[in-house]
């Protein structure tokens, strides 16, 4: 199981003929992801070689989905064209099969392009957008699995912990922490660090709560906005599984953008302190140091009767 992406999900790559797209498509195939081809306008009919095997390229997402019955797509298209790539994928999934998952890795998409793209996706209820500016989503399997994005596959293992995070490398840190206590992951979702994105914390929490494989959740936030606070309040009412949390940026100065476009404390709002408080008020077990996530998770699992020792 896992959420949204099954282990054997059929995946397309938008921008597959580009340097980034091809590099990561190759890594995904190596991991065991069921890549079924890609899309680059103007290069339809060509093939790309991934791990020594040819994969077809289509001119449009309509053609690609019709030909492959893909379940998901991952976008490695440069920022000026990424907003439209999201909308093309959403439109094609909606028209061809009424559903699909669109994962956008691209960093640096103009905010107003995302405002438009998110509204476009929300008008197509069967389509889910993950990202942009995120590491992607991975559902580890029994030997292989579905890695849709740029995360290092080899650090993951199939298990029962669901992970959701705004950050890339900090997600890897969380994954390593689960492994350090002998736990694997059901699905790890990077929702991205942009101010306007698709799937949010609450969507992930709801899906993890409903997923039979997931037994506990790790949630990693960062400064800026109030998505973490809203998610914490929602979790208090709706999530029965144990949640462990961390928020990055306690030492960030106000008014300064910390790398991610969305990571900024503005008007005294969106501080790490506020978010930790909201987590604690919702009964989420907090780690003040990401190196402690494993220990805090272990404690939470014991408390919930999910671990004995």
């Amino acid at each position, binding site marked *: 199981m896992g959420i949204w992406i099954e282990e054997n999900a059929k995946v397309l790559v938008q921008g597959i003929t580009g340097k980034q797209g091809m590099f990561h498509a190759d890594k995904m195939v190596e991991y065991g992801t069921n890549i079924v081809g890609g899309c680059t306008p103007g290069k339809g009919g060509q093939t790309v070689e991934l791990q020594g095997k040819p994969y077809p390229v289509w001119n449009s997402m309509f053609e690609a989905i019709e030909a492959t019955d893909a379940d998901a797509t991952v976008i490695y298209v440069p920022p000026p064209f990424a907003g439209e790539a999201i909308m093309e994928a959403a439109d094609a999934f909606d028209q061809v099969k009424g559903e699909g998952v669109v994962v956008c890795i691209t960093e640096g998409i*103009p905010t107003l392009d995302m405002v438009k793209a998110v*509204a476009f996706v929300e008008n197509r209820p069967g389509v889910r957008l993950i990202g942009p500016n995120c590491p992607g989503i991975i559902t580890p399997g029994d030997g292989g699995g579905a890695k849709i994005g740029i995360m*290092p596959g080899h650090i993951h293992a199939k298990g029962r912990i669901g992970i959701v995070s705004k950050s890339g490398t900090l997600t890897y840190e969380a994954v390593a922490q689960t492994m350090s206590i002998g736990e694997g992951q059901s699905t790890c979702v990077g929702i991205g660090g942009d101010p*306007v994105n698709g799937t949010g914390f609450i969507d992930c929490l709801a899906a993890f709560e409903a997923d039979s494989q997931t037994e506990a959740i790790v949630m990693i936030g960062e400064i800026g906005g109030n998505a973490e606070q809203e998610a914490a309040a929602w979790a208090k009412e709706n999530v029965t599984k144990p949640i462990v949390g961390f928020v990055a940026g306690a*030492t960030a100065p106000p008014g300064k953008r910390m790398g991610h476009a969305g990571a900024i404390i503005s008007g005294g709002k969106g501080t790490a302190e506020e978010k930790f408080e909201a987590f604690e008020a919702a009964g989420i077990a907090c780690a003040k140091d990401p190196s402690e996530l494993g220990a805090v998770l272990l404690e939470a699992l014991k408390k919930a009767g999910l671990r004995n020792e």
Partner: protein
Amino acid sequence: MNIHEYQGKALFKANGVKVLDGVHCTSVDEALSAYDSLNSKVVAVKSQIHAGGRGKGNLYCPNTGDLLMEGGVKIAFSRDDVENYATNILGHILVTKQTGEEGKIVNHLYVESGCDIAHEYYLALLVDREKKSVLIMASTEGGMDIEEVAEETPELLHKVNVDPNAGLMGYQIRDLGLALGLSGAAHKSFGKMLRSLYALFVKEDCAMVEINPLVRTGGDEMVALDAKVSFDENAEFRHKDWDEIRDLSEEEDVEIRAKETGLSYVKLDGNIGCLVNGAGLAMATMDVIKLYGGEPANFLDVGGGANEEQVKTAFSIILEDPNVKGILVNIFGGIMRCDIIARGVIAATEALDLNVPLVVRLAGTNVDEGKAILAASTLNIHPADDLAEGAQKIVQLIGGEV
């Protein structure tokens, strides 16, 4: 990216948003001829810096530190007043609530015609992260600190979210105008202004447009008396003209250089330099340093695919800060391979003759090769297995107590 008020007003004027006549000046002589040309008995002499609170700020001499004048925005009733105010402002340091104690040197001045004010309002457009759309906020409480209005009298702050597919609708403009108590010519003038502002916001890829105050004149016309405009940096590729209006003196030189090499750097006040891959992990690294009793000297994200050259540049940028007493490198290799980082660290420390303690924590892709490369070097590099250990080591090495 922020721009000055005078630039924002030029943008307003070009897009049909009513502003007063004004002239941008960089010298006292220019300010005087601006006064002569404006043909207005009363003029405003306004310091131009990228920070709010100018009116209530103070001007200081950069050499002696003496207080020269209270207030960075002055109303001049004569030519002599203009000369006096411009002299006190230009080349001097303006300290406001938003600049920090060090303040900012004022190199630009805006001299603007006087205005017959009947009432002051507040108007702003910005991207609403939660509703994922453009938000318009307006209030009858103009000229005030809007955070205070939102806190104390939220019923006086009126909000409208614009559907990105439908655009700004007539009824939304009417509702907002009525909420502000506008009628007749003033309501009509407000509607025209709001349509122009929304179009400008979208066309120019703004992150925020704030007008405080927006005024209704005695003649029932709505005029933007201030203009605070910032752009979404992600959209820079389609606005080639931004290079011309960017005031580099308002930005940290080292942050600009970092950006040019693909690094994201923010200077802080502490003494432990950090070099990290990924924004979230970079913030977490700073947090953990603080947790173990240290103070981070910077935020530095080398990104997902840094090469040896970028690592070297990152080190040299960190070392430019004379406060730096030690460095913590924290890399979780994903796309980035730890062996490449290890070689980059060694090359950089050799080339830069590093003489402060260095702690390196590597994890992820090719971690064993990376650790072996560091261990084989004769350089004084302290390895760490996790972030907490790394932070504790660097705090101890610079003589702090954990």
